[in-house]
């Protein structure tokens, strides 16, 4: 095996280890981790923040710059998904389908970016 291949496999093993260890971080110990109340209170806000932090830049940036043109399929897909969500609460599947349909229609139908 060449050095590069060995290095790459070691990197894959490291990625597996990081994935398993981060996902099971607070589950590894058999005893309940004792965390202060303020930490638990603050962490209540973390999961949804993490998800939206991955979403927002993907919607408003292209190649690291704010969108210059409002005719962007992504904006309309997000708007359609949000409107559907407000109209039919708690329908996650429908929201994704409406957003995806809008995206595909504008991109493949009208040739938008």
């Amino acid at each position, binding site marked *: 095996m060449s050095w590069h*291949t060995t*290095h*790459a*496999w*070691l*990197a*894959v093993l*490291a*990625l*597996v*280890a*990081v*994935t*398993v260890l*981060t*996902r*099971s*971080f*607070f*589950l*590894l110990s058999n005893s*309940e*981790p004792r*965390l202060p109340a*303020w930490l638990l*209170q*603050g*962490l*209540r*806000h*973390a*999961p*949804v*923040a*993490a*998800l*939206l*932090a*991955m*979403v*927002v830049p*993907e919607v408003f*940036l292209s190649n*690291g710059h704010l969108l210059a043109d409002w005719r962007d399929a*992504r904006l309309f*897909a*997000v708007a359609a*998904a*949000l409107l559907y*969500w407000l109209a039919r609460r*708690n329908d*996650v*599947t429908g*929201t*994704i389908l409406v*957003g*995806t349909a809008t*995206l*595909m229609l504008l991109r*493949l139908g009208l040739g938008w970016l």
Partner: protein
Amino acid sequence: MNLPSVAAWRTARADPAWRAAFAAGRRDIAGAALGTVAMGLVAGVAMAKSGLGLGLVLGVSLLVFASASQLACLPLIAAGAPLWVIAATACVLNLRFVVFSMHWRRYFGGHSRLHRVLFSYLAGDPVYAQFVQRYPVPAPGGRTTRAQQGYFLGLALTNWAAWHVASLAGIFLADAIPAAWGLRFIGVLALLALALPMLTDRAVRCSALAAGAVALATASLPMGLNVVAAIGTAFVAGLWADKRWSVR
């Protein structure tokens, strides 16, 4: 897997409540699985075109099971970056799962360590979001009820299968999938739809808004550190907002 868990699996599958919950989980993840399929295809195509050998690419695809860190770390691996840089990047991108793991502890902290690790490994973003929406309150003692267990596995195994089928398809059909489809954004739409039910009260909406703004403003940071900045912001803004609207 040891024998007791195989026996437990058989008993669970014989229970109609477990089977109904499993079917419900499979059904509820369907929309989000569309996002998982899209992201899996994107990751597969990226891996096929990364210049790494097929054996390695299959190794990453089948073992790592983490879309964001796979996409971010492949170029680093291909470029022969130092191992610690690759591991640190993956740690930052997986930070949200550390937070999720604390919430999961309330649901299945009472199970054996093997089960806890296995469950958390399967629990990607859509599984977490869908599960806590269906079961906002954990069962006492950190032991999942039969129905919760069936629902969790219905969600998690469907999501797992969707990811792997799509990722393998992406690797082998890389040249047949046009970039114009913009598949990646379907994954983004799925994450958005999964986040919406979590915006349950005014304080969380406030901290989420702050987090989104910070993630956008710090988007140029390397290694996905903008997500870390956003989580930190939500933490501080959340503590303030909870006090302001006196939650708990």
